[in-house]
């Protein structure tokens, strides 16, 4: 089975690059090739200027990795785990200008056994391990998996702070808010392909329409044919419980929608106007929603 094929992209030094896509899009397969955990059948992969298939040992010395599953030895304490992982690298954690244990608030957990950590605590330990060798390049596979909104914002702050010293981050996410909030550039993946690549503003501006209007239909049917004739509407996507309209003139579109409802020609529950997002980029490239 081919998980990913024909991917071409590069990540610049000092940027946060995100691979965004639904589960099964091939994000993990892609990042695990970059981490040297999987070898590609074809093509060339260079990480930190080194060919990953021939120089994986040197690459592993200089990268930090957080896998999707945290993979912590069950019976070791947090401090022992950190100490063990630090010993694997020539660049030890004592040379860090930035102590991951302190910054990630793990001090109180030092003597806790890994199997007794909560999901969020495990994620923090996993991130600390990824940073233990002061890597030039950090790979994070779904880093906010299982975190509550507060934990997620904390994580974003840590990643930004760490990267601000000119270091590079490659992460995967299925959450477009995370990609928009955190990433300098985004590669949108679907079915083993990169379907869109660029900075977040670039990708959104490539859209034909600036604004998206969500019309919640409720029980009454809303004919898509009628909606496409409304002023300003460039594109209509019929969903199960409503219509998504892309409009160049949101004021005109919503105005006529409300007028039609007032005259009884149309029936719907609500209208929401928002700026087009990465969700819409994904929708326009694949015809499907990112989050369902």
């Amino acid at each position: 089975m081919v998980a990913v094929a024909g991917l071409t992209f590069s990540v610049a030094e000092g940027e946060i690059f995100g691979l965004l896509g639904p589960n099964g899009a091939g994000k993990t397969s892609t990042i695990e090739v970059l981490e040297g955990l999987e070898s590609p059948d074809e093509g060339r992969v260079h990480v930190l200027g080194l060919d990953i298939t021939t120089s994986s040992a040197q690459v592993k010395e200089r990268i930090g990795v957080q896998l999707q599953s945290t993979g912590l030895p069950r019976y070791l304490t947090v401090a022992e785990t950190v100490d063990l992982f630090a010993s694997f690298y020539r660049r030890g954690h004592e040379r860090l200008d930035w102590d991951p244990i302190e910054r990630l608030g793990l001090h109180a957990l030092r003597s806790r056994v890994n199997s007794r950590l909560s999901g969020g605590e495990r994620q923090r330990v996993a991130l600390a391990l990824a940073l233990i060798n002061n890597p030039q390049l950090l790979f994070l596979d779904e880093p906010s998996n299982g975190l509550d909104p507060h934990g997620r914002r904390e994580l974003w702050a840590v990643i930004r702070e760490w990267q601000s010293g000119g270091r590079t981050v490659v992460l995967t996410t299925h959450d477009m808010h995370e990609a928009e909030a955190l990433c300098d550039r985004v590669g949108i993946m679907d079915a083993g392909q990169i379907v869109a690549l660029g900075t977040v503003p670039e990708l959104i501006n490539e859209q034909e329409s600036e604004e998206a209007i969500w019309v919640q239909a409720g029980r009454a049917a809303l004919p898509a044919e009628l909606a496409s004739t409304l002023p300003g509407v460039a594109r209509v996507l019929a969903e199960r419980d409503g219509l998504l309209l892309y409009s160049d003139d949101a004021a005109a579109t919503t105005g006529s929608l409300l007028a039609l409802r007032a005259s009884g020609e149309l029936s719907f529950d609500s209208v929401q106007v928002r700026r087009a997002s990465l969700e819409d980029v994904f929708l326009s490239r694949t015809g499907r929603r990112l989050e369902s």
Partner: protein
Amino acid sequence: MTVFGKVLVASLKEFARDRTSLSFTIVLPLLLVVFFGFAYGGSGSTFSVGIVHGVGRDTAPLLSQLRSDHNLRLVRGGLASEMANLRSGSVDAVLVFTGAGRAPQLYYDARSGGSALAAQGLRSITTRNGSTTVRSILLRPVQAVSHSRLNFVVAGILATAIMWLGIFAAIPLVQQREEQVLRRFAATPLSRGTLVGGQVASRLLIGLGQAVFILLAARLFFGVPLGTRAGSSLVGGLVVVAALVLLGSLAFVAIGYAIAALSSNQHGAHAWAQLLSMPMLLLAGVFFPLGVMPGFLRPLIALLPLTYLADAFRQTAVQGQIYAPLSVDLAVLAAWVVVPLAIAVRYFKWR
């Protein structure tokens, strides 16, 4: 500390905190020592008797009398070999016929309860017999190295504990694979050789600790000597025991790793570990002497690594019957290192 040392120490800590492993390697063997200590502390009801020069018309009535006694098992042999058997504990007494018209002599080990009982039993039989040629029987106590069924069993328990230690090494390994710990290690510069080497070395150290623990427990509670073969020094004997512990641990860890390589999850690994260790426990002469095994099982018994490890321990640490020469024990155990290791290397999956 080197990376190897760090992996080794981490592996020891993980072992010590895993209650399942601990119960199999320390608690269960200790319970077995205690159980068999009480069960075999006295003597069993069946005795083996070595018969020397027992041919001719005048000895026939006594021998047929002895043969018809279900509590006795008669073994024929030369004087030297039967006396050696008595010293090593494989026979409880030796009956020597010195010539027509002369009283047979009964040799037994005065320090062994079993041997003394056997001698008493034999004396009463020969007296009841009323044979004209056997009027009396001379009792000749022999100074033998202490031996008993308990010695035999302690060697078996030590071998069994090492078997469990090695075979059940499969479980944490598969667990680490399932929980992606191995994959996380793979994303670091840690080499596979260092990882496996450190983990195996920790098992070997645990094996040595286990041996000290079991032999000490047997000595403290039941007076089974840490013992050496008659004539060799205590230290020399212990070095041989330690070497055997290492070789045995290596063989069973290799088997454990082969199990880990061939099973896709922890349930499978558990099933394989049980499937391999249970028959060995019953068949390898650990708790029941190999002599009582039916003939059709002999070829299977001759393949089991536990047969040879228990046999080797019996020959060095404590005394007992010999299944194969020590060199054969060592060679078979070495083969049990190489073959499972090859399987593990060939089929092991890191994710």
